[in-house]
């Protein structure tokens, strides 16, 4: 709240606005079809600082031919007669025009259930995910969320229904929600108007437009209207603008446009439900957003069974001197342009010491050795950062580190499952080879998705010594390679997204014939079993078919759009799936987003594997461009990494400015990130000179005890679950039984371990450690302090720091204990435990 006061002051002082540089009308051109068609027009002013403002409210309109159309207050143009009309807007001393083509005003649009009734249910929130739109509905009445499946909704309203997750059959009596004999007694009207008790309260009044529409529809016999076809099926919802920036108390209208299957567009601003996530930042009334406090939030728009979103940023007054930093590559263009629009100043470039530590940790998971730090800091070569990036990318540690990152994602592990360890090792080797040879990522994906036989990637089809369920395997591939979570749709249509249960099972069917052969009990050949042929496999008796859990229909492999791809019985269906997946736009966008999060602690879409229309990207254009660049460069992971770390955005300092302190999503300064369990354990080993010893212990097989080769680092443990480590568990090493999520969140066990745990205490006391060595060599306190600062922080101590530490050492009667306490403190500090 500390920033509230200055803002009020500056707003008061702000007063007279400079005029816009230009104004324009959105849309510039549009077609209006049918009787009563209308189009909302927005007038947008562009200002010298690049900002835009909605001037519609202060616009004076003039039409080229008032016979053709009428302009309503607020900028809505209503069609009257066929022809082209030019609307001229005058605002803030400037003018701009738009051309509207009016066609077929004589044609009356036919009633359509989804639009005319479904639209009301959406706008009034009846089919929201918290009300009747939940998986099982509410109060015995179920609607599809946002009216996505109008056929089902029609059935429920007109005939009634009952919902079971696992079956499509309806048990028990059906209660229609309409009353054809006495339409006003229809349940849907009585509930919605609160005439009888309704958990959701009153949604509209008796006699309101919504009431009348439903009443007339019931009285007319409750028709469904024409089936959905090219001309009346909405395929996409577009919001203009995608990013809205407002100063406090300013307003901005949103333009909601529906795109039909036949390519036609229509203004849906009048029939959409807009909702703001954070109502302290902005509120919405109709389709007009009003700014609240400073911040950023999103507006979610629902109409015609679809959802879309826009981002709203509420910004402070213009900054007197906004200095644009130099741009290293296209990333900076997108990031800095948005920062400028939001009036958030970017921090300066990181110092060399900051950059060195950050890039070493991010590219290799390893702290730079003190000698290397000295060299780098002393060098005045202007190209030293770029050179360091190249050097690091050619180290063995780079391969170790990225192998470990992808091991996590691909869930390389042994698990208590009875499968031969060798097979898991092959899988680990496949990942390592892929990283070491910089295999194109699309090829990696293909190899995994379509894996057959006994090789590395086939291993992941067996969570234990059986083939994993098709649905789960498919959902995991989608989450890994598409960044989408389809899991919910396994049991029911996804509640917040357009994923249907049919889509889920269509995709799952690609994995429906995955099977294994071999009876060693530990190693198997993975193949796609033919449907109608016995292969002499004990597990499969010729009936390897997959059925839809609700409809019980036999499933055929189908892509997201419903295209059935059924090849011959002897083909591997996953090959076609893999080909389709790696070319799909989702593939590259998910890959670059995931990669981005490795360097910034969050994805452009975050969580990285939760792409949804209701979870918008902070920088949609940047995401598109990164994905395009990744595709153009042959899905080259190293190219992608190089592009990201070469940007100035990545190389900004973590020190915030007064004006960007609160920014967490726009990359105005680097955000500290907790080191991963493996990385921090290795770092403690490096700084103390006492590497960790890893002892094997596979679950429930106490016989298998041994040690990892001396000096094996935590990031290089290829099957970490073979190695018991209290430290790694406490610091959040994922067990890889499901897709790993590292929280990086502080917890009590971590704090306790720091203060009293073995990893810290034993290493400090070890006779072979660096502290003991320096002690034996008779080093001065200053030398010891500098050496450890370089090792742990990759920087020299400040004068004041050295002095304070020297004083503390001197005040302790026991120098050895004091030095140990000093090193302990370094290892427990946030500066050490974080990448910044």
């Amino acid at each position, binding site marked *: 709240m500390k920033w509230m006061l200055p803002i009020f002051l500056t707003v008061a002082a702000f007063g007279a606005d400079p005029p816009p540089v230009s104004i324009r009308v959105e849309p510039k051109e549009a077609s209006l079809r049918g009787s009563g068609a209308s189009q909302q027009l927005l007038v947008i002013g562009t200002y010298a600082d690049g900002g835009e403002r909605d001037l519609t409210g202060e616009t004076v309109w003039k039409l080229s031919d008032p016979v053709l159309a009428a302009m309503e207050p607020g900028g809505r143009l209503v069609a009257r007669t066929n022809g082209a009309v030019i609307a001229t807007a005058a605002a803030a001393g400037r003018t701009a025009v738009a051309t509207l083509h009016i066609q077929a005003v004589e044609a009356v649009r036919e009633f359509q259930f989804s639009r005319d009734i479904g639209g009301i249910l959406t706008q009034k929130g009846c089919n929201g995910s918290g009300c009747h739109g939940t998986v099982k509905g509410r109060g015995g009445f179920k609607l599809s969320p946002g009216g996505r499946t109008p056929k089902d909704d029609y059935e429920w309203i007109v005939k009634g229904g009952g919902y079971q997750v696992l079956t499509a059959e309806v048990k028990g009596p059906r209660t229609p929600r309409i009353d054809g004999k006495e339409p006003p007694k229809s349940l849907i009207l009585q509930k919605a108007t609160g005439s009888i008790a309704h*958990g959701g309260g009153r949604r509209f009044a008796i006699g309101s437009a919504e009431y009348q529409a439903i009443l007339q529809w019931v009285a007319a016999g409750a028709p469904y209207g024409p089936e959905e076809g090219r001309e009346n099926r909405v395929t996409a919802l577009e919001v203009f603008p995608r990013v809205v920036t407002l100063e406090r108390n300013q307003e901005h209208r949103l333009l909601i446009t529906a795109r039909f299957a036949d390519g036609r567009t229509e203004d849906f601003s009048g029939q959409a439900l807009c909702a703001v996530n954070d109502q302290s930042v902005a509120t919405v009334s109709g389709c007009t957003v009003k700014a609240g406090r400073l911040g950023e939030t999103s507006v979610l728009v629902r109409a015609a069974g679809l959802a879309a979103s826009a981002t709203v940023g509420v910004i402070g007054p213009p900054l007197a001197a906004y200095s644009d930093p130099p741009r290293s590559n296209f990333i900076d263009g997108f990031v800095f342009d948005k920062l400028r629009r939001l009036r958030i100043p970017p921090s300066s470039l990181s110092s060399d010491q900051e950059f060195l530590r950050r890039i070493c940790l991010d590219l290799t998971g390893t702290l730079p050795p003190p000698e290397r730090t000295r060299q780098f800091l002393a060098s005045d070569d202007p190209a030293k950062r770029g050179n360091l990036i190249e050097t690091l990318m050619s180290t063995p540690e780079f391969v170790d580190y990225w192998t470990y990152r992808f091991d996590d994602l691909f869930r390389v592990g042994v698990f208590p499952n009875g499968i031969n360890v060798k097979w898991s090792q092959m899988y680990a080797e496949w990942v390592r080879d892929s990283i070491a040879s910089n295999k194109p990522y699309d090829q990696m994906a293909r190899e995994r998705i379509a894996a057959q036989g006994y090789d590395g990637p086939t291993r992941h089809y067996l969570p234990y010594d059986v083939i994993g369920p098709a649905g789960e395997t498919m959902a995991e591939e989608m989450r890994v390679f598409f960044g989408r979570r389809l899991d919910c749709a396994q049991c029911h249509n996804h509640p917040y997204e357009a994923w249907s249960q049919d889509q889920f099972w269509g995709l799952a069917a690609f994995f429906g014939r995955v099977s294994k052969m071999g009876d060693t009990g530990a190693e198997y050949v993975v193949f796609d079993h033919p449907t109608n042929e016995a292969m002499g496999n004990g597990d499969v008796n010729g009936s390897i078919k997959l059925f839809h859990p609700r409809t019980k229909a036999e499933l055929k492999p189908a892509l997201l759009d419903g295209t059935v791809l059924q090849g011959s019985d002897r083909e591997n269906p996953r090959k076609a799936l893999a080909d389709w997946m790696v070319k799909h736009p989702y593939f590259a966008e998910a890959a670059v987003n995931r990669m981005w999060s490795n360097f910034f602690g969050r994805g452009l879409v975050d969580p990285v594997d939760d792409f949804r229309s209701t979870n918008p990207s902070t920088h949609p254009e940047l995401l598109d461009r990164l994905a395009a660049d990744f595709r153009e460069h042959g899905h080259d992971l190293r190219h992608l990494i190089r592009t990201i770390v070469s940007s100035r955005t990545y190389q900004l300092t973590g020190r915030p400015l007064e004006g960007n302190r609160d920014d967490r999503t726009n990359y105005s300064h680097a955000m500290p990130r907790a080191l991963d369990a493996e990385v921090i354990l290795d770092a403690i080993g490096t700084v103390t000179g006492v590497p960790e010893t890893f002892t094997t212990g596979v679950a429930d097989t106490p016989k298998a005890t041994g040690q990892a080769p001396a000096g094996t680092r935590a990031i290089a443990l290829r099957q970490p679950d073979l190695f018991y480590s209290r430290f790694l568990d406490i610091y959040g090493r994922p067990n890889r039984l499901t897709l790993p999520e590292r929280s990086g969140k502080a917890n009590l066990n971590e704090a306790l371990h720091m203060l*009293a745990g073995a990893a810290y205490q034993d290493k400090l006391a070890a006779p072979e450690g660096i502290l003991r060595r320096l002690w034996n060599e008779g080093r001065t306190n200053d030398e010891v302090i500098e050496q450890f600062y370089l090792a742990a922080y990759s920087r020299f101590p400040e004068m004041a720091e050295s002095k304070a530490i020297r004083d503390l050492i001197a005040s302790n009667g026991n120098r050895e204990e004091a030095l140990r306490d000093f090193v302990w403190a370094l290892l427990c500090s946030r500066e050490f435990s974080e990448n910044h």
Partner: protein
Amino acid sequence: MGVKPMQEGSCRRDFLKAGSLGFLGIHLSQFLRAAAATPAKGKAQSCILLWLEGGPSQVDTWDPKPNSAFKPISTNVPGIQISELLPNTAKRMDKLSIVRSMHTMGSDHPQGTHYAITGHEVNPAMHFPSLGSIISKEMGPRNGVPAHVLVPQWEKSRQYEEYFRSGFLGPEVDPMAIPDPSKDGFQVPDLSLPKSVSLPAVENRKAFLKVVDNHYRAAYEGVEHANMDGFTAQAWKMLLNPAVQNAFDLSKEPDKLKERYGKDAFGQSTLLARRLVESGTRFVTAAGFHSNSWDTHAKNDEGHRDRLCPVLDRTLPALLDDLEARGLLESTVVLAMGEFGRTPFVNPDLGRDHWPTCWSLALGGGGIKGGRVVGSSDETGARITSRAISMGDVFATIYKAFGIDWTKEYDTPIGRPIKIANSLEDTTGEPIAELS
């Protein structure tokens, strides 16, 4: 003047609100819940789960039947009979009630364990919180001791331990998992200062930490710094708090009592559970029966007679007596169960296999009535004949004992509402009326 960040996770949750009853300012489920009974203040303050890993045979324990090799015996409650393998427990039947009509999901150990301890089936898209984590969250810690403890931890596998954790609730209510207290040299790791660190050294270390971290903290703002500081402060308090050290210090228990509980892993874990509960811990899982001890696929009768029931029948009565003697039974729920029951028939290895269809558990204390039998099974203990009880009903009964609203739902990070007492077919569990 920067742009205030979107709060993590708020997006989805708020969207639900916005999409439903945003303008009413309340979440629909809250609205619907308003009608539900607000539970009275409960008597229970803590719960001890005696985890009978592997799954006991109902007909050889709580629900004696002719197809058991063992005879029923009378208990100190007229009309209630249990297996002759539990004679000591039979003398204290007034303190415990039996549910003979448990019906649960998951027919193998991982799935069964997950279901029994969370009330939900395994779902790859979701990490569900365990009963202990939910109770710890609802009740909060007491007296500075850890609220949730699991003893002993599994030595090698983390799979089972995972199920007992907090799921999406977060690390604050994860159980503190500690080693087997029956082993020589038992010590709780990280809970006491290393011998090399003297008390004055603690102050020195704090002073050093302040110096070396000052530079960074002045310049950078880590979102997690304040959280970590909070945990660090709590950790120092725990390390320096004699009450915490004392709570875990089994050496303070007289040897005689240790013997009454049994000096095996189950007995000592249970004794430690009592000690912890006495100190303020909310939920302790006493999991001394590791490695699927009760999983008698072979030689079921010998196992129950020689190896399993004698241990249970020593420790459980000892716990009930001890709690009562200390006046803790009124405030401590005791729940004894495994992840499922066992088949009514015997397999060729003279064993019994997994049976989630119909099985028994025992519970009492903390205001839950003893000396009752809930539900019944057919003549072989194979099927429920009356009053099917779900895990959600058992959870609801325990929540009610604590005064926790059992109809509560938590929102997951993606906004899916999760019932804390999840019953079959996605309904909400009901407290067992006979017991509360």
